[in-house]
């Protein structure tokens, strides 16, 4: 497999080489002394092939990230409707009108309120549980691999699969209610307007926790073991060591986990769409992304949907910034 094979090398070259003919020809001059390419080298750097190799990725970022990002912001300021391909329609500038429509829609406001409920439950639970489980995993030697696999498995599994299971577990006559008996909530978890969103928050916490445990486990490798040993000698108990060594040692990762769990929460769509059949009951579990889908694609108002998207991103930015400050000052 490692034997040089010209045809295969050419195959790798092709997509990039087409765009940059100089780079397509493998030869020592691209990496070596390129005296004859003086001006070119000054313009593109010592190894212009790098640009050629990165070109597909650069094009990808431009077409799939940068352009749609700009377009989303653009649409949000115009009166925009979907048109058949080839049809030209006027898209008059309407300023903040789409934002006004979104902000005066009680369903949209409700969806932002729901996401607040979600974050209040999901984010602290995620941070605390993943930190505790990672530290616990880090200090056991037996069965460590088996425990790790158990924690990661929900994370690698499709939401749709697990939602199918949770629907049966938490339905009216599901296993959870059978076990709870008279203690079961009425109406049941997913159709109860006070419990629907917390149920979703718990599902997402459970599903994603393995990923955050993984991040904390990586960070724990960098906390010096001598710290624990000297603390033990000084008579610190397990809780004291956790509080004074583990928690401060994991500060940078805690910040990352906070931000990532906020972003994940803001992106919530599949769970309200499936687990509570479209954000029910009565909108109690709609999410902003579900609103973007409903407004933009079901009701054909991509302009209002884009305005919701822009507001959501600004909100995530503000929350991420706030959590950065919070973890720094502590």
């Amino acid at each position, binding site marked *: 497999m490692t034997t040089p094979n010209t045809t295969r090398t050419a195959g*790798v070259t092709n997509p990039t080489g087409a765009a940059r003919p100089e780079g397509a020809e493998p030869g*020592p001059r691209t990496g070596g002394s390129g005296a004859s390419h003086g001006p070119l080298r000054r313009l593109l*750097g010592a190894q212009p092939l790098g640009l050629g190799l990165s070109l597909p990725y650069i094009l990808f970022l431009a077409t*799939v990230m940068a352009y749609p990002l700009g377009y989303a912001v653009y649409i949000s300021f115009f009166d925009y409707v979907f048109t058949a391909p080839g049809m030209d329609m006027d898209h008059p500038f309407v300023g903040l009108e789409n934002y006004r429509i979104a902000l005066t829609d009680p369903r949209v406001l409700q969806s932002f309120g729901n996401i607040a409920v979600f974050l209040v439950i999901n984010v602290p639970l995620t941070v605390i549980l993943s930190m505790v489980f990672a530290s616990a995993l880090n200090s056991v030697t037996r069965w460590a691999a088996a425990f790790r696999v158990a924690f990661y*498995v929900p994370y*690698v599994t499709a939401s*749709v*699969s697990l939602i199918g299971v949770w629907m049966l577990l938490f339905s009216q006559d599901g296993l959870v209610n059978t076990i709870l008996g008279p203690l079961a909530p009425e109406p049941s978890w997913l159709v109860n307007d006070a419990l629907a969103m917390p149920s979703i928050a718990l599902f997402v916490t459970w599903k994603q926790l393995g990923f955050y445990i993984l991040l904390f486990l990586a960070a724990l490798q960098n906390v010096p073991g001598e710290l624990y040993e000297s603390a033990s000698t000084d008579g610190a108990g397990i809780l004291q060591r956790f509080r004074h060594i583990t928690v401060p040692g994991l500060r940078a990762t805690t910040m990352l986990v906070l931000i990532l769990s906020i972003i994940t929460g803001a992106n919530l769509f599949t769970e309200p769409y499936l687990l509570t059949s479209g954000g029910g009951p009565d909108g109690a579990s709609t999410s902003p992304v579900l609103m973007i889908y409903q407004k933009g694609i079901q009701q054909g108002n991509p302009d209002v949907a884009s305005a919701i*998207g822009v507001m959501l991103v600004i909100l995530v930015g503000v929350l991420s910034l706030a959590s950065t400050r919070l973890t720094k000052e502590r």
Partner: protein
Amino acid sequence: MRTRTPARIMLYVLLALAAVAFVFPFYFMIVGALQEDPTTTPAGMFPIGGWTLENFALIDERVPLLRALLNSVVFTLGVLLGTLTFGLCAGYALSRLHWRGRGVLFVVMLGVQMVPFQLLMIPLYVQVAGSYGLGDTFAGMILPFLINTTAVFIFRQFFLALPEEMFEAARIDGAGELRVLWSIAIPLVRPAVATVTLITFIGPWNEFLWPFLITKDATMQPLAVALANYISNIAQTVANPNGAILAGACALALPVVLLFCLFQKYFTASDIGAGVKG
């Protein structure tokens, strides 16, 4: 070793309880999928009879199971191929080659990690389904995931860790950069290829929202979308849908879970952490 015995036992009890909470739904899924009439009583969790494969036939009647699995495979392999080919090239260029724009690209990549897909959903849908006419095609499904930025980070990280002398030696021997990349650099980062394959596989295989938007034709839908449609629309009209839902859930979950269990040693914290943190 560091903690005293009672604390140590507590630790194992805590971990074991948590592990059960994490694995139990999978047990429920598999047992239920193989039962004639999956019940939701504690006793029903340990069935002694009534084993059947009927549920898989039932779900196959409602959603074309094999076709949907095939769609998932094509979608996932397309993303994997794109990410490995272009990601290795970009990762190598970003770590080992000096060219103008390298710094800018790296900064852009860090920024990209912050852009939520959901903001791009509407314009991407307009572009891909409208302007490019790629609705109900694999190309339209694959395009937004073609190159995974986290994978580029991981490749860059691994290439950076290789000693410069190996590259120098190859160049002195007259190898061109592409030859160096193909014959020296890529074989040395095989663990990175395994890690990236694993994490990239998870994405499109489990992805719901984008293929759900872009495929209206049932014969083009990946299994996650087909199963979701079954759960939200068809299940209500069927007498006993639970077994079929669980059978579909198994079909969607098992390939990734098996792949993960086989290659879990490549699912390592430091590599993925490096990718996420940049």
